[in-house]
């Protein structure tokens, strides 16, 4: 139940950004180039830790493959308003 992984770098980044906002409470909006990539890397680590993936903070295929799977819409970690 996995859609084909996007090959384009920007598409991969957008998929990950949407995923981390929705399920890991990553704040939307511009944080400035360097800051946003730090925040993103940190959220990727949290997600990799949850799914017992290798914790790299990078968008490797393993990580993207999990992000691309059909799933529940409730957050995995973070505040529930």
């Amino acid at each position: 139940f996995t859609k084909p992984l996007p090959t384009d770098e920007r598409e991969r980044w957008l998929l990950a950004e949407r995923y981390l906002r929705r399920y890991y409470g990553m704040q939307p909006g511009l944080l400035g180039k360097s800051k946003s990539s730090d925040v993103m890397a940190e959220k990727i680590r949290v997600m990799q830790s949850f799914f017992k993936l290798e914790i790299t903070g990078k968008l490797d295929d393993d990580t993207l493959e999990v992000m691309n799977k059909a799933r529940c819409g409730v957050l995995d970690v973070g505040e529930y308003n």
Partner: protein
Amino acid sequence: LFPQKPKWKNTVVTFRITNYTPDLKKEDVDKAIHNALRTWSLVTPLRFKRLREGNADIMISFGRGEHGDHNPFDGPDGLLAHAYPPGLGIGGDTHFDEDETWTKDSHAYNLFLVAAHEFGHALGMAHSNDPGSLMFPVYSYAKGFPLSEDDIKGIQELYGPNPDHEKFKPKPEAPNKCDPELSIDAVTELRGETLIFKDGYFWRLHPQFTEPELTLIHSIWPQLPKKINAAYENLEKDLVIIFSGIRMWALNGYTLVAGYPKYIHTLGLPKSIRKIDAAVHIRDTGKTLLFTDEEYWSYNEQSATMDQGYPRSIKDDFPGMQERDGDEVDEVDAATYKNGYLYLYHENLQYEYSYNRRKVTRIMRANELLHC
């Protein structure tokens, strides 16, 4: 559980189905919802009461895109459904994405399984990171009772056990790949990947990926039994043969081949053989070795017959396999072949046997195969 552990104060929880998906008959939706709620009432004192109008604790609806809670769905696949923790107003409400195809079988997506997961949230369960638990966030299909030990422990922390029901046999806990005592049930190649079977799960090892992926056997092959005894790949025929008990199945890629299961005795094994412990195809010779108790057989794939002079003793033909306490190993759990070496697995060890030197050259932990 969710932060602050929200839960229903009353053990009678009301629910109302406010609309239906056109993918299924109404009675099939009713049945899926009923069975999904029953999954949780079986293991707790909770009882569910259906309302046909007005406001219920759990309001159930199907919608697409933005559907009224500022938490829009995303079209087909991806996000399937969501639910809110127990509480007033939207608390407990459960929404299904109408852009999905809802089914009552193993085709995507089984409404009963997704509803059982979402009602877990509506009762106060958050996500689990145990791939075998119902509350794991990623969808996977499995038959049978869907709650794992992890699910039952969580829900009973909120509501306690069901006073009327004997303890339910939950799904097996997911195996821990780096447990130093880990033994494996079976291992095979499959078109360049390696599949390692353990209890009701298998790890999928892809040469490019560092992390083995753990999956429930039933989520990929609902027709296979929970326990696999042995497996091997015949590259020439592009088939993987899976053994469990006296039966065997064939996979072409991830697809089960029609006409199976067949009995292992059709290979020429005597009826006294009730299970195959390990199997491996030796490409260089075209022979498949089948290990049963302390012996092994050689099957000629070309002529589809058992070779003469078998069975032979494992201990005699593969000298050098020793337990840690020095006892000689005479049984095998799993076997693979690579670059002239036969890897024989027994309990938590694997023995690398060199055909050229006719002896065991290395002894390693079984889960070294899983990058542990």
